[in-house]
């Protein structure tokens, strides 16, 4: 440690394990109220560990202080602008934490008899109905735990659908602009990935699609609006081509925030849709989860949905309907996880849908798209497009992609440098270097949450960083300066991984 650093900063970098001191503790066990039988009698030594796991020995005040200090080394959505493209960082209403924590929800055992969990099952059934209405597809399974898990469900449903018809298809198409989860999912589902190109306006290249769509193709996975933030204007033709060869059309719901109440994937011809409840339906992102990735499907895919399904049964003798878990689904692909899914996430997303209603959800998409187009126009007005032009000069949907190629060429700073300099201005940078088809990509998703003033401020920040770079590119290249740590040696971390503390 250099002599200039104070003891305070040394102490700030300590882990909970480094704060451990033998004899300190927080937990006190309840009193032993049963006979004190010797452990040897209950658990033979051959099955026992030689020494306790070396967990930290710390007191409650130290734990609280440690994690509160750590929390202050995080930037968060509740504090500032977080235009992380493709992640839909919208406001997380505080009500949601309150209702999810009600003991009737939070302390309900997943194997409680359905008769004694009617509130939970009714909530899930209602959420299924709402998601079906938004997707324009009649059947919903809430089970998948995240978007990529929903994708895997979709690919396995596709496999089950084809195999049930006696067809053995081998390929799944994904556009060049696809999220990495799409091709990774295809491989896990036992298919080969075939990439489809995009045309000059950013749409799927229909000629390339026609050339590659044959009867070996099981599915096309598509994000619409695409990861370029553009609506696929040829979506109906795409659906026609894909269905023409007997394949399914899969909707990656990452960008659903652009079109709620405006149009529906089911009407576009999609057979399977996944939702990212943590994006569109505002589950707090938690530093990387939890989320949930429910799926909606058409009639022809329904028989294969995961088990169990939440169903509503007519009540006896005019009683209120009864909600149940249905296991008897002979063509089901089976389970994708334990129990019934991330129920706590469902509670929050259901509260969101009930708060906004149909009109509010439509307004969400309208303002999300308005905010994105305004930000794009305002950046252009500020002259930012000289260095950071839009990758495709069109009206965008809820997000847009800029290319930092001219900035790199003319100002000799990269998109990474721009992003790192933004950290000093107190905003979270947009997604960088994705999608891969755009050089030095910067993907900006403001969401409906943000005010015009926040967007104006962001424009000023970008303009200021570019102005600064014209004078001295080193400023951005060495940024950030004001963060808890500065640029970190990521290559070194991967070369000699230290992924746990040596104790």
């Amino acid at each position, binding site marked *: 440690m250099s002599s200039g650093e104070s003891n305070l900063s040394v102490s700030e970098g300590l882990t909970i394990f480094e704060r451990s001191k033998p004899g300190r503790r927080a937990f006190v066990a309840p009193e032993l109220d049963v006979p004190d039988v010797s452990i040897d009698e209950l658990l033979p030594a051959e099955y026992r560990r*030689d020494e306790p796991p070396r967990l930290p020995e710390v007191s409650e005040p130290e734990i609280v202080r440690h994690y509160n200090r750590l929390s202050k080394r995080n930037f968060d959505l509740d504090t500032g602008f977080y235009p992380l493209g493709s992640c839909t960082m919208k406001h997380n209403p505080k009500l949601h934490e309150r209702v999810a924590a009600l003991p009737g929800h939070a302390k309900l*055992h997943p194997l409680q008899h359905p008769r004694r969990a009617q509130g939970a099952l009714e909530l899930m059934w209602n959420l299924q109905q709402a998601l079906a209405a938004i997707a324009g597809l009649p059947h919903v399974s809430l089970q998948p735990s995240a978007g990529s898990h929903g994708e895997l469900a979709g690919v396995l449903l596709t496999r089950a659908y084809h195999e049930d018809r006696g067809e053995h298809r081998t390929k799944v198409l994904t556009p060049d602009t696809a999220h990495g989860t799409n091709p990774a999912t295809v491989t896990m589902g036992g298919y080969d990935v075939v990439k489809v190109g995009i045309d000059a306006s950013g749409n799927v290249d229909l000629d390339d699609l026609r050339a590659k769509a044959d009867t070996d193709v099981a599915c096309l996975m598509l994000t619409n609006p695409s990861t370029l933030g553009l609506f696929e204007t040829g979506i109906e033709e795409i659906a026609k081509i894909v269905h023409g060869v007997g394949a399914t059309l899969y909707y990656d719901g990452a960008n659903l925030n652009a079109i709620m109440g405006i149009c529906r994937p089911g009407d576009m011809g999609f057979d399977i849709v996944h939702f990212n409840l943590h994006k569109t339906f505002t589950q707090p992102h938690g530093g990387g989860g939890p989320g949930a990735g429910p799926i909606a499907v058409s009639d022809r895919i329904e028989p294969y949905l995961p088990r169990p399904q939440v169903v509503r049964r007519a009540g006896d003798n005019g009683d209120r309907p009864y909600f149940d878990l249905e296991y008897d689904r002979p063509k089901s692909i089976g389970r994708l996880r334990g129990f019934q899914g991330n129920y*706590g996430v469902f509670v929050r997303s259901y509260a969101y849908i009930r708060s906004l209603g149909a009109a509010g959800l439509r307004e969400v998409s309208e303002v999300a798209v308005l905010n994105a187009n305004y930000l794009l126009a305002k950046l252009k007005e500020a002259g930012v497009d000289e260095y950071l032009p839009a990758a495709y000069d069109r009206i965008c949907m809820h997000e847009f992609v800029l290319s930092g190629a001219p900035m790199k060429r003319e100002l000799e700073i990269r998109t990474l440098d721009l992003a790192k300099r933004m950290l000093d201005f107190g905003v979270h940078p947009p997604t960088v270097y994705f999608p891969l088809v755009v050089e030095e990509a910067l993907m900006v998703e403001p969401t409906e949450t943000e005010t015009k003033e926040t967007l104006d401020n962001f424009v000023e920040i970008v303009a200021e960083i570019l102005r600064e770079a014209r004078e001295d590119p080193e400023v951005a290249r060495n940024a950030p300066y004001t963060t808890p740590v500065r640029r970190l040696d990521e290559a070194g971390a991967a070369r000699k991984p230290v992924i746990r503390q040596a104790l």
Partner: protein
Amino acid sequence: MSSYVSATEEDRREMLAQIGVSSIEELFADIPARLRLEGADGALGPPHSEQEVYEELRALAARNVSSEDELSFLGAGMYDHYVPALVDSIIERSEFLTPYTPYQPEISQGGLQAMFEYQTAMSELTGLPVSNASVYEGPSAVGAAGYVAKITNSRPRFVVSRGVHPHSRETLQTLARGWGAEVVEAPLRDGATVLPDLDGEVSAVIVQQPNFIGAVEDLSSLASAAREAGALTICACDPLPLALLKPPGQCGVDIAVGEGQTLGNRLDFGGPSFGFFTATEALLRRMPGRIAGETRDVDGKRGFVLTLQTREQHIRREKATSNICTSQALNALAGVIYLSWLGRRGIVDLAELMLKRTAYARERLSAIDGVTLLHERPVVRELALALDAPATRVIDRCLAQNVNPGYALGRDYPEYEDGLLVAITERRTRADIDRLADVLGAAVAAEATAGVGV
């Protein structure tokens, strides 16, 4: 205007003018007209005030019987442990609650360091050197471990103990159909797994510790049989009993996974919780999910980053070792806070308390007329009984007394048709166990009497 959108009418006018269009409608011009919806979908209903939504959600909650509303011995994968107040207090901080995956490490040191601490704690518990930062939950973690075995040795068959949680077995089966692998089951005898002869076709042997019916398995012997056949050993484990049990890493297990709910996470009707995933050094570069690593910044200051990302979908795409992106960071954070709260001594105290109360319950319950032990193997926190009466009817009788006696094993195990799985946590006292014994005894006796006339 909904309460979560800030744009005023004036803002909208100014913004549309800046864009150069006259209406919001024009922004959607790329969407073919016949796909555009006319008006709002009635199925979604009108908007509601915060207060109204609170009341609706409260009314739904009131129609559930939670672990606060009955005396519950339900376990079978999720357990009613006490979650300390400090866990809620810390994970509700917006700095942990509202950011996303730490793609910008300079402003995410809190989350990244917590991941590193979590990885260290899970590595200590399981005795394996490598941990990721979480996967979705328990059963899908078993599936994810199967996929690592698949990409490691490409062998076509998995041998899974019937002692593995039924949800885990079914999840593995679902996923393996995708990769084209076969899953075969190894039976339980006297509560413990009996492996078939293993050949060179077996990719991995998958067991659970303690197993689904509560029995402590001879993990070392099972792993050694797998190793002789060149197969990997995957062990799904319950983390709290690992305070006492020999860690999987010391038994020769290659991958230890499991459900993390018991570590400071609430029941939540089954989720969100987290799955943990730990492995040998040899499997490091085939791990799924995020991994935090320690490094230095340009000034030499200690810091943490997401590392070994070349395994992951956003870099490797179709060659990635998994498709996982969003996992369960907040739940894993609750896990490491909880483990710090328990501490090195506390986790042993807690596990010993469960061990002794479970032993007491075992003795007390098996002394009831018409109730016997399903197996005699050592147990830590859960025990399996065989009832001399229809289990579902016995359970119904107990529920009528507001005692939930446990899980009916017959739902998943025809061979244990009237089996009952009883879980004990530190929240179930001796008096609670005595009450269960009284209620269960009366229910079995009543069913026996009822059965006589039939």
